């Protein structure tokens, strides 16, 4: 039955990892704005578009 203790320890470690990831996400502000990133991801990066106006 000793193996159970090892398994419990391992499972707790994994769970703690997820908890840490969650806390980091909150701290880094990912829960502050739940809308804008969903729009931002659709923008093309560094794409320069020239209008048809000519100088």
């Amino acid at each position, binding site marked *: 039955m000793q193996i159970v203790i090892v398994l419990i320890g391992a499972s707790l470690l994994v769970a703690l990892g997820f908890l840490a990831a969650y806390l980091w996400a909150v701290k880094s502000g990912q829960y502050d704005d739940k809308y*804008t990133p969903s729009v931002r991801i659709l923008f093309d990066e560094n794409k320069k578009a020239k209008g048809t106006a000519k100088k």
Partner: protein
Amino acid sequence: MEQTELLEKTVNTKTACYHCGDECPDESIKLNEKIFCCNGCKTVFELLDENNLCNYYSIDKNPGATRKYHTKRNYDFLDDHDLKLKLIDFSNDIKTNVTFDIPQMHCSSCIWILENLYNLDNGIISSKVNFLQKKLFITYLEKTTSLKKIVGLLDSIGYEPLLNLEDKKEEKTKSEYKSLYYKIGIAGFCFGNIMLLSFPEYLSINIAQHEELKKIFAVLNIILSLPVFFYSSSDYFISAWKGLRKRIVNIDVPLALGILVLFLRSLIDIAFLNGSGFLDSLAGLIFFLLIGKLFQNKTYETLNFERNYKSYFPIAVTVHKGNRETTIPVEKLVVGERIIVRNNELIPADSILIKGNGNIDYSFVTGEAVPVEKKNGEMIYAGGKQVGGAIEIETIKEVSQSYLTQLWNSKAFKKSSVSEESGITSFSNTISKYFTFGVIVLAIAAGIIWSSNITLAFNAVTAVLIVACPCALALSTPFTLGNTLRIFGKNKLYLKHTHVVEALASIDTIVFDKTGTITENGAANVKFIGKDLSQEEFRFIKSSVRNSTHPLSLAIFNFVQEEKILSSDKYSEQPGKGIEAKFGGTILRIGSKHFVDEQIADENLSTKVYVSINNEALGYFEITNKYREGLSELISNLEKDYGLALLSGDNEGEKENLRKFFGYDNEFHFRQSPHDKLSFVEELQKNGKKVLMFGDGLNDAGALKQSNIGLSISDDTNNFSPACDGILDSKSFNRIKDFIAFSKTSKKIIVASFILSFVYNVIGLSFAFSGTLSPLIAAVLMPVSSISAVVFTTLSVNISAKKKGLL
């Protein structure tokens, strides 16, 4: 939710401005294939095009804000060091962080252009948008650019920031929000693991031969429960303690008692009695309670309920020094300074008129809709708005001591929150007093019955306290009210807090402001009474009022249906009197009776504009308020159940018109100053009335604050509205009755769910009283009662909302 509210402009593509989507008068302003409504819009396009930022136009169609009515502002005041320190978030002399409010933000294109600002100004290191809060966070290099330049840039592309000096307190609510997320995360983590480690208990697996294992599980459970008890549940202990110190037994008192007993009993169980405790129930309970809290804390981030007079004031004024004009922050304005006030600008301090024709609109302060004429040397009070040409004034009082600001010294503004001071205690707090008392009596009774056996007595007493912990009770209120708040939000009534829903149910008197509240802003009913006018005569009238900025002129201009506009040969406007215009051989005079110089009819208080052509009196335009749609229906519905009253800053001119809506039983008060309004509400409250006040402007702010619930009505919810408990979109004005009725329904649902949770408590108590509450029963009973309370309230709120047509 907000994302669906993104402006979808339905645009006629033929004449729509490429930049803003407004209809173009003609196709004269053109750049290649693109047509613009005004030169302002074209300038923005050119600027963006030059910097290769035309993606702006491909993400959303016609994303810009119209530049037709835009006047260039002078941002010199942003070079003022003290003012700058108040606006920026952080600076280390090299880099500076600043946050702007940008109300015009409305679509994906806006996000894109604002996050690409570094292409327009290479001093900007980064710019980031929070769309729901309509905020823009900018980091810039002090050496390369300046605050003034950035604000100027934003203004020039149509995103003029709202400069406000008192936004700093928002930081606090943000960190509160974060700490709730932390608490939920930790409670959830511990709850899951404790349950896992309690599984042998649930399944009655005999692990007696592994004594060691059992001990390890128990110790792990205790370790996992520590952060839940000491961190996640701390709010409940703090709130209970605060309540007790004020001698109030709020709902958190029995909760905190239950949590404390759960924890201590579990520790004793594990340490001395070889039991396994109730730590899973403890963690689960707190996890659910915090979820309920998160649900209740729904806030409308873009709306601001706390605005005071300062947010109405400009943050800078134009001063005249020597021969130079410059702008300085309003706080640096001293007595004796000469300032220039242009069309539609607010007077920041009590002053004397020096130069120009004063035509002051005091509707902000008094509610009186018609501007007052002022002559040189006359006193002008702060809060008035100049209509017409620029004037020069000299300040005689400091901003903080002006007439307008005195209102804010009233004690109504000192009270903090609805729940504590409005005199309406929430239902759950009323119940919890009796509840706590009952639980303690029961616990003592259980202790006495089993007094022969100490262990059994301890078990029974603690079990009673644990089972009676009002978790279902504590959950049903936030879920019911939170749901109600969301349903109101969908129907465009935005309440500041869930307390307001409960308070709304106990209202018995409703007070309305007149101007802007029951009348439509900027709309008027115009009627011409007199001789039949020819088309040509109407054309003269329309042509002559066109050049005037007076609101009555505007009303007449909009009223007269005439396409062709003539240019007058001679034109003069005498402020406060009227207009004289000459078209060929015809002289037209339009204005006050005295100005038109005729004895036509009796003086009446309603607003009349007289007309004469070539000294022949033709009649007058009668201009009356336009009332909101559905007003009479709403009033006749409300009249049956509530006391109604009407307060107005205007004169009695509209009295007879109002009688049609309000009948003869309700109170009318005219010529009410902001102070009068406040004391009227106060008087009602002294007579034991619970007052709901509807207002719209700064002049109602005192009364809104004083009343049990103050709701402000707004045509555009992003606009300024005075400090209040909620903002009602004017489109939902005729549904007020439904809202009040629904708040009553919510209250009934809370009562019903309380009864439900009492049933659970009785079942639990029967176990507890006999001293046979096993961890398994507790672990089942607690989540079942909590979840059923949540399901019951959520379903019943939604079903009854559907029945009432609110969903």
